[in-house]
């Protein structure tokens, strides 16, 4: 069935601001396809984003969209979801946005298990400001603020989310975009906090400095280094140095936050 996702876009806002070869458009398309598959009531979908290249994605989508401040998308989304639990809230963040300035909010959104679907565009760099390292930049990689190579250890944001209490955690790449769509759909269907890391490529600010100047080089790198988690679990593959897992990395059952709050309401009304 041909996809009709253009109806989800604010066409008057296009073309987008992203550089030629940027992977963000792929992730945005995958979000739109996932929204089409989910077929949620149009006016009950809210897209909240932070600040950075990725967060500009919200503005292109024709829903209620809130382009907030740097790192704060999750607490804004928490207020929205808590005030109106019938809304389907998607949160778009970048790697610096979600893991550095917004890291504490991420931990607590996971801990609360509030029903938000967070999609982290991980391009390993601060793209909008011209290529500074983020907590997800791998050791040794170059950035304008790491001209001699990244010297800080990096986060695995999926493990952070899992350890903090997220009930659905998945990762995919712009190369594995069919998987990415499925993860977004499953994340949205999960009644609780879902984090989907979308490994995307930034040839302009990251690739050029890290021997992957062409977008195709970066996508090929994703293809060669992303390993399906099921293959690892089945023993069909082993993770080599520098490789990472993709797929549904974690899920568990837990009470969702706005439902837990309804129990508070019941107790308060009894007294």
């Amino acid at each position, binding site marked *: 069935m041909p996809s009709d996702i253009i109806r989800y876009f*604010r066409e*008057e*806002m296009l073309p987008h601001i992203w550089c030629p070869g940027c992977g963000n458009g792929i992730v945005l398309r995958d979000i739109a396809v996932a929204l089409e598959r989910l077929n949620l009531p*149009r*006016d*009950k979908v*809210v897209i*909240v984003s932070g600040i950075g290249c990725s967060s500009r994605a*919200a*503005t292109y989508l*024709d*829903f*209620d*969209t*809130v*382009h*907030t*401040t740097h790192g*704060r998308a999750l*607490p*804004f*989304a*928490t*207020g*929205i*979801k*808590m*005030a*109106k639990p*019938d*809304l389907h809230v998607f949160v778009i963040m970048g790697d610096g946005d979600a893991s550095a300035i917004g890291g*504490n*909010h991420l*931990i*607590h959104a996971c801990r609360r298990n509030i029903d938000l679907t967070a999609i982290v565009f991980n391009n390993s760099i601060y793209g909008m400001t011209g290529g500074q390292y983020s907590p997800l930049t791998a050791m040794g990689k170059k950035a304008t603020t790491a001209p001699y190579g990244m010297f800080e250890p990096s986060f695995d944001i999926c493990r952070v989310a899992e350890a903090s209490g997220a009930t659905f955690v998945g990762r995919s790449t712009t190369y594995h975009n069919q998987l990415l769509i499925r993860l977004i759909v499953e994340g949205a269907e999960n009644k609780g906090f879902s984090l989907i890391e979308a490994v995307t490529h930034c040839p302009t600010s990251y690739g050029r400095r890290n021997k992957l100047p062409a977008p195709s080089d970066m996508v090929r790198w994703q293809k060669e280094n992303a390993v399906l988690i099921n293959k690892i679990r089945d023993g069909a593959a082993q993770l080599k140095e520098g490789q990472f897992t993709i797929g549904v990395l974690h899920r568990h059952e837990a009470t969702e936050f706005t439902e837990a*709050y309804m129990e*508070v*309401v019941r*107790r*308060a*009304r009894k*007294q």
Partner: protein
Amino acid sequence: MRKPIEIRLMQGNEACAQAALDAGVRFFAGYPITPSTEIAEWMARELPALGGKFIQMEDEIASISAVIGASLTGAKAMTATSGPGFSLMQENIGYACMIEIPCLIVNVQRGGPSTGRPTAPAQGDVMQSRWGTHGDHPAIVITPWSVDETYYLTVKAVNLAERFRTPVILLLDEVIAHLREDVRKPDPRKLKLLERPRPSRDRNRFRPFGGALDEVPPIADIGMGYRCNYTGLVHDEAGHPSNSPEVTDQLIRRLVGKVEARREEIVHWEETFMEDAQVVVLAYGCSARSAMRAVKTARTQGLRAGMIRPTTLWPFPDKAVEKAAAMGLPVLVPEMNLGQIVLEVERLAAGRVPVKRLSRVDGQLFTPDEILAALKEGF
């Protein structure tokens, strides 16, 4: 004048919290901080049974974010904090100004800077409440001098936020917040409550950021079907980001203009003994209580002192000072800071009359005697 149906002994923070509930606030997000915490505690207890939402966030930045998020869905929303938390909230107060989202921020002032004196009173956040967030922006800041007035000004603050689609700051003094006094509580059902302007137009013609320089455009709740874009970037009338100089100029002038053009609806001050005054004290919040006693005592001693007590700090009640200056009255400004509101008074007096400042920054209230002494000492 409203008719009280009940006289209740309440703490300032409690009166603020209850007034907010009576004014229709149904969402509170906050983070514990002295001396404002009782507001959060009251809300945590009362909101759930009212069908409202209470959440203790991970910090003050998250708190103001959640408040703005909730307000985007149409809920009347608030937070309460004190100096250090108020500092953390500044960026998103600017965001609320920019996307024109109503909310109430209570800042119970304590001694600063930094951690300062958490349980001591101070009035050091007057300028921060005006200029704390970056860029030109509107500010509505209100300050009460009693627990009873805290109730009524909280209701007013919630109404003004809705009326003007902008954050409103209630500046409380630590001693008012923790004081217990009678509140002449009205019938909440008879309070005049305002709602933000909401759209009646069809989606294609809806301009949530449009209108003339003095206009407060309507706003749709998230989920109403208008599918709006909210962004802290400069945006056009529809909410789309823009780099156009004309769009930028229009937006910033309208944000400030919508409040400035309707000063009369916002600005309030009280005048006492001004008819025959020889000299005037301009004071607000807890300092005004000591000042009022000083003014009354001065009169028994033959010095005809008058008093101007703003309850609106921003926009500043220019006319009150204009009038005093036109009458040739010297103005004494006692404040629990090293001189903040006095700068406005000096600006407006413009050298026509002497303006004298009296400061305390030791965490102690002014005594009526020291204000009296300053009055007698002359200008």
